[in-house]
């Protein structure tokens, strides 16, 4: 691994002021642009997990894909151990970059090729990233990986085709594939949301073991409970913006941003009687463009003030590891 010469410094995958725009049409000189991700900054460390929570369309997956270099940032940087991964002069090839950052997808049925065996899916990454190994060593490594993710008997599993496995087993194979590369960071894009409730915990615990082994996770979810269970830190996203982030317990137990409060109040609770009104105006989720101003949540926020519609609130530090982007907590503007 390329970190072996500096083992004392913990590895970091940083995102700074990441902006991702998509062209959605328009003419050559007047293109219409969708701002999917706006000024997102965070960092991942090995052996820790960061949960990204938000509703559909909040830009969670887009951030993950940018971290995998599937999308190029429109502005801002992704840095691995201080090196900009997209800069032409410093960037590694996708193959080298893959050795550090891998992704697990939401849909276990779509993430394995139906015409290939499980062995093929694990053999390729092992071969690509360890070109020196001979056939027996590759096979041994594949079997070891299958055992590592808790699938047994390993030999028989290797010979199976994806359709012969259950959703949870497929997701375990997908995790093994990320491990096969030897990645230090795994971006898990809603890895359990399409699985049966009964097998979700098994997958989460497997990822937890891997985290203890020193892999850094970005855990994308819309399930706040699992975010708190699995991740040390949590960031809440709304329409491409990070609105509140910090220590997972603090963010989920003591949410400050009106949107986080709304999101948490939307979690169904056992024993709650009657319907609870959601603490927000009924409004459309805005479509952001580079020209949009103000807080993206202003249109639905019950506490929105005039300034919320005209300017993006600055970051306010509420506690040691608790940040929020909302004018309600901004000292300078408080009267």
């Amino acid at each position: 691994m390329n970190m072996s010469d500096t083992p004392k410094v913990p590895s970091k995958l940083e995102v700074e002021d990441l902006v991702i725009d998509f062209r959605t049409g328009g003419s050559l000189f007047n293109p219409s642009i969708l701002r999917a991700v706006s000024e997102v900054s965070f960092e991942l460390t090995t052996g820790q997990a960061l949960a990204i929570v938000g509703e559909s369309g909040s830009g969670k997956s887009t951030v993950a894909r940018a971290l995998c270099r599937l999308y190029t940032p429109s502005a801002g940087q992704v840095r691995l151990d201080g090196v900009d991964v997209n800069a032409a002069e410093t960037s590694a090839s996708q193959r080298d970059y893959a050795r550090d950052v891998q992704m697990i997808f939401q849909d276990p049925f779509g993430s394995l090729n139906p015409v290939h065996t499980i062995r093929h899916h694990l053999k390729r990454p092992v071969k690509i990233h360890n070109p020196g190994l001979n056939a027996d060593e590759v096979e041994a490594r594949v079997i070891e990986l299958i055992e590592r993710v808790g699938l047994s008997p390993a030999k028989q599993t290797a010979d199976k085709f994806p359709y012969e496995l259950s959703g949870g087993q497929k997701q375990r194979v997908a995790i093994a594939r990320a491990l096969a590369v030897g990645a230090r960071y795994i971006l898990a894009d809603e890895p359990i949301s399409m699985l049966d409730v009964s097998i979700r915990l098994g997958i989460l615990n497997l990822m937890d073991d891997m985290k203890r082994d020193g892999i850094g996770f970005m855990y994308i979810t819309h399930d706040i409970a699992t975010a708190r269970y699995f991740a040390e830190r949590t960031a809440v996203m709304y329409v491409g913006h990070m609105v509140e982030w910090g220590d997972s317990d603090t963010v989920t137990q003591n949410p400050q941003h009106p949107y986080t409060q709304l999101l948490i109040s939307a979690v169904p609770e056992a024993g709650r009687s009657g319907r609870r009104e959601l603490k927000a105006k009924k409004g459309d989720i805005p479509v952001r463009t580079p020209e949009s101003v103000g807080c993206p949540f202003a249109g639905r926020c019950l506490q929105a003030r005039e300034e919320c519609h005209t300017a993006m609130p600055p970051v306010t530090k509420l506690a040691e590891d608790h940040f929020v982007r909302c004018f309600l907590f901004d000292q300078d503007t408080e009267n």
Partner: protein
Amino acid sequence: MKTLKRYAAGLIRFYRGNPAGIIGSSIVALILVACLAAPVLTDKDPNKRVARGHQPPSAELVFGSTRAGKDIYTQVLYGGRVSLMVAFSAAAVTTVIALAVGVSSGYFGGRIDETLMAVTNVMLVFPQLPLLIILAAFLGQVGPLVIAMILGLTSWPWGARVMRSQTLALRKKEFITAAEVMGESRWRIIVVEIIPNLISLVAGMFVGTSLYAIGAQAGLEFLGLGDPTVVSWGTMLYWAQSSAAFLVGAWWDFVVPGTVIALVGGGLALINISIDQVSNPKLRTGRYLKIWRRMKAETEAKRREA
């Protein structure tokens, strides 16, 4: 090895409860084997005069003789070699071009896609038969190999579009993204991850194009655009026509090659239909009708008992 076994199992599954597939494949296989085994099945030469002109079928001349006194049975066997070779090589050329153009276009997208699709669309709007006639006429009386190339190089655009649309659908699948994130090369993604998923489509296209090529080749040769000295099913029809076989009542002269073309065409069409049914089970009728009838009979029997 498991992959091989799986293909064999897939083949058995394909033919089980699929009479159209079995009948079609048997017809085509039978004729193909007969043509390949021509030297064993006949001791005559297709180009030699062996009897008087227009002899009706008899024990000696199974399918009779042509106006020039050549044995039609021998000509059908040897001519089939040429006709089937042209059909299958035209189909192979078409399938390879369609696969290459369609998959690259769908996978790479952007400018490559635009360019390739522009070419494809231009090819697509050419009226096929007039184009073939003009090309063949322009090149003179062309041999079977040139006919195969003309057919192969003009009939790929439709297939390329189908391949492209399938590739576009596959490209969005997460296993392709996973391979990209893993650092797999683009060509390996195309060859190892995408193309195996298109196998049924490729098979269907190959059979469909063979069917088209058999007819188109016979048509071109019948019109006299092929080389009439080469024995093939198309030139047999050409000679039957030019020797006024119909007027003199020598029906065997055109019925025999016509029937063989129809048989091969029908067999290929049956294979094509059964491939369609496998890839789109909604088109299946027979097997499910049978199951439904049995279920109906069972429920009625139960009702009567009760």
